[in-house]
C-alpha cells in the first residue's frame, strides 16, 4: 500500500505537498529535539555547558555510526540484529593483530566486519531467509567468534595511535565525534546524489518493481548489509580504543535496539522505501539527551527507559504512513 501511493506520487509528479510530506519526518524529529532542549534549558541549570554537549556527542557517536548503517538496511525493508556481535568481532580482530601494525589491524578489523555484513546479505538474498533470522543467528554466533579469537580473555593493549581513535582530540572536538559527522555527511551524500542511494530506496519501496526497472536488488542488499557491518566494525574499534582493551562479551550490549529506536524515531519506517539519515542522527541525539537529562536531574536511570519507550511509540504514531 505504501508502494502504491509512492507510484501514484511519482506518476502525478512531485507536488509541493508531497515534497513537504517527504521531509516532514526529519523536521518532526528536529522539532522534538528543539522542544527537548528548551525543556532542559528551563529545568536543568548547567545543561548548556559546552562540556555537557561534548559528553552527549561522545556517548552518542558509536550508536549513531551503527544506526546510520541500520537506517540503510531498514530502508531496504530489512533489519540487522547482528551489529553488536560484529562490533565484538572487529574489536577482537583489532586487539589481537595490533602487534603487527596499527594500520594493518584497523584495515583487517574493518574488512572482517564488512565481510560479516556481506555474509548476512549473501544468506538473505541467496537463500531468501528473512533478515531477522539470519542476523539473529550472527547475533548468537558472533560474540562466540569474537571470544574464540580473543581466547575467551580480555585483551588489553597499549598503543597510542590506535587509542587516538577513541580518546584523541582535534582542538576541543573528540576524534570520534568528527568521525561520526563525516560518516553521516558521507551517507547523506550517497543517499541523495548516487545511483546506489536510489537503488536502496527503490529496493525497499517495491522490490518487484525495482527489479523490473533494472535495479540490481540482490547486489544492493548485500552492499547495504556490508555497509552496516563496516560501520558496526568502526563503532567497535572506537569503543575498543576508548576502553584500551577488547572485552568481547560486553562491547555494544543491546546496541541493535538503540540503533533501531534511533532509526524509527528519526522517521525511517520499518516498512522500508525511505531513509532519513539526518533524522537518525537526531533520533539518536534525542535518546541520549533524555538519558543525560534524567541523570543530571538525579532521577533513576530506569525512568529514562520509560520515557524513551514512550517517545518511540509517539514518534512512530505521528509519522505512520497515511493510507490515501
Amino acid at each position: 500500500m505504501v508502494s502504491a501511493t509512492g507510484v501514484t506520487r511519482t506518476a502525478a509528479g512531485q507536488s509541493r505537498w508531497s515534497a513537504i510530506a517527504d521531509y516532514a519526518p526529519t523536521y518532526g524529529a528536529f522539532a522534538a529535539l528543539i522542544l527537548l532542549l528548551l525543556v532542559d534549558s528551563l529545568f536543568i541549570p548547567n545543561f548548556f555547558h559546552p562540556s555537557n554537549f561534548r559528553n552527549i556527542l561522545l556517548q552518542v557517536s558509536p550508536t549513531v555510526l551503527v544506526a546510520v548503517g541500520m537506517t540503510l538496511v531498514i530502508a531496504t525493508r530489512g533489519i540487522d540484529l547482528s551489529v553488536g556481535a560484529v562490533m565484538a568481532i572487529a574489536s577482537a580482530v583489532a586487539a589481537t593483530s595490533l602487534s603487527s601494525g596499527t594500520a594493518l589491524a584497523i584495515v583487517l578489523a574493518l574488512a572482517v566486519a564488512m565481510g560479516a555484513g556481506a555474509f548476512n546479505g549473501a544468506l538473505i538474498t541467496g537463500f531468501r531467509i528473512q533478515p531477522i533470522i539470519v542476523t539473529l543467528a550472527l547475533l548468537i554466533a558472533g560474540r562466540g567468534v569474537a571470544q574464540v579469537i580473543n581466547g575467551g580473555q580480555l585483551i588489553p593493549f597499549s598503543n597510542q595511535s590506535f587509542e587516538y581513535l577513541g580518546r584523541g582530540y582535534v582542538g576541543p572536538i573528540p576524534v570520534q565525534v568528527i568521525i561520526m559527522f563525516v560518516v553521516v555527511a558521507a551517507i547523506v551524500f550517497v543517499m541523495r546524489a548516487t545511483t546506489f542511494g536510489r537503488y536502496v530506496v527503490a529496493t525497499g519501496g517495491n522490490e518487484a518493481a525495482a527489479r523490473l526497472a533494472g535495479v540490481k536488488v540482490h547486489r544492493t542488499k548485500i552492499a547495504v548489509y556490508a555497509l552496516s557491518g563496516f560501520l558496526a566494525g568502526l563503532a567497535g574499534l572506537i569503543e575498543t580504543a576508548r576502553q584500551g582493551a577488547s572485552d568481547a562479551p560486553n562491547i555494544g550490549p543491546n546496541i541493535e535496539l538503540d540503533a533501531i529506536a534511533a532509526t524509527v524515531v528519526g522517521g525511517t519506517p520499518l516498512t522500508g522505501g525511505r531513509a532519513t539519515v539526518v533524522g537518525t542522527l537526531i533520533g539518536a541525539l534525542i535518546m541520549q539527551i533524555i538519558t543525560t537529562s534524567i541523570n543530571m536531574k538525579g532521577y533513576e536511570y530506569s525512568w529514562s527507559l520509560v520515557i524513551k519507550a514512550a517517545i518511540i511509540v509517539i514518534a512512530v504514531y505521528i509519522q505512520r504512513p497515511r493510507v490515501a
Partner: protein
Amino acid sequence: MSHAGMTTIDNVRSARARLMRAKLASLLQRQGALLALVILFVFAAFRYENFLGWPPENLINVLRQNSMVGLVALGMTFVILTGGIDLSVGSLLAVAGVIAASLAGNGLVMALLAGVAAAAVVGLVNGLIISKARIQPFIVTLAMMIAARGLVMAYTKEDTVRVERSAVSFAELGRGKIEVGAFSLPYPVIILFVVFALGWLVLTHTRFGRYVYALGDNEEAARLMGLNVDRVIIGVYALSGALAGLAGVILASRLGAGQPVAGNGWELDAIAAVVVGGTLLTGGQGGVGATLVGVILLGMILNIFNLEGQISPWWQMVLRGVILLAVVVVQNRLSRKKQ
C-alpha cells in the same frame, strides 16, 4: 502383449515411487525439526552413557531447564502465527516474577494469579496499541520491552525481591515434583505439557484458533470476511503476556527471588525455538507441536554440549548460531521445492 503389460507395471511402479518421494519431501518439510530431533536423540543415546538411563533423569532435566522458555515460545507461536512478533516477553517475565515474589507470603494462588494477570494486562496493552493505533508489532513490543524493564527496575530500585522463607507453597511451584512409579516429574515439566496441550486444543479446535491462522494467512481477507481482527490481535498478545508471566512466576519460585533483570534476551531464544520448529515468521503456517519440538531440539543441543564436556562456552555460541541457520536453510529449500 506381454511386453505392453510389463510397461504398464513399470509405469505404475515408477508412479508409486514418485508419489513416495513427494510424500517424503512433504513430510520432511513439515517434520524436519522432528527428524533432526530423532537423529540427535539416537546419536546421543549411543554416544553418552548418561543421556538415557532409567529413570530418565537427564531427559527430565532437559525438559525442566527448558520449560520456562518453552512457555514463552508457546505464546510467541500464537503471535507469530498472526504475522506479528513480541519482543517484550523477557521484560514481562521480570514484571511477573517480581510481583509474584513480593506477594509470595500470601500463598501460591494469590502470587501466581497476580503475576500472570499483570503480565497479561501489559500484553493486552501491546495488542491494543498494535490494533487500534496501527503501529507495527515490532516497534510496539520493542518499546514495551524497554518501558516494562524500566518500570520493574524503578519499582525494585534495581534490587532482587526475595521470597519470604515462610512461603512454602510458592517455592513448591518451581521446585516440587510428583513421584509416578520410578519417574519423578517436576511441576514445571507437568505445567509445560499441560499448557502445550491446552494451546494445541485452542489452536486446532476453537474458533479463536482458526481466526489466528486466518489472520496470519491474509489480514485483509480476514477483515473483509467480517472477522474481528482487532480482538484476535489483542487476544494473542494478552496470551503471550500471560504465558511469559507464568514463566516468570515459575522462575521466581525456582530462584526464591524475583529479579528485575530476569528474562533478558529470552525473546530471541523463544523466537529461535519457534522458527526452528518450522513456524514461518510470515504467519499463517506452523503450530504448537512444531514449537515444542523446536524447544526440545534447542535444549537437547545444549545438553549434548554439556555431556560432550570439551566444548568451550564460546564455541557453543558459534555452534548454536550455525545450527539455527542450518535448520532454517534446509526448511526453506524443502518448502520451496514443494511449491
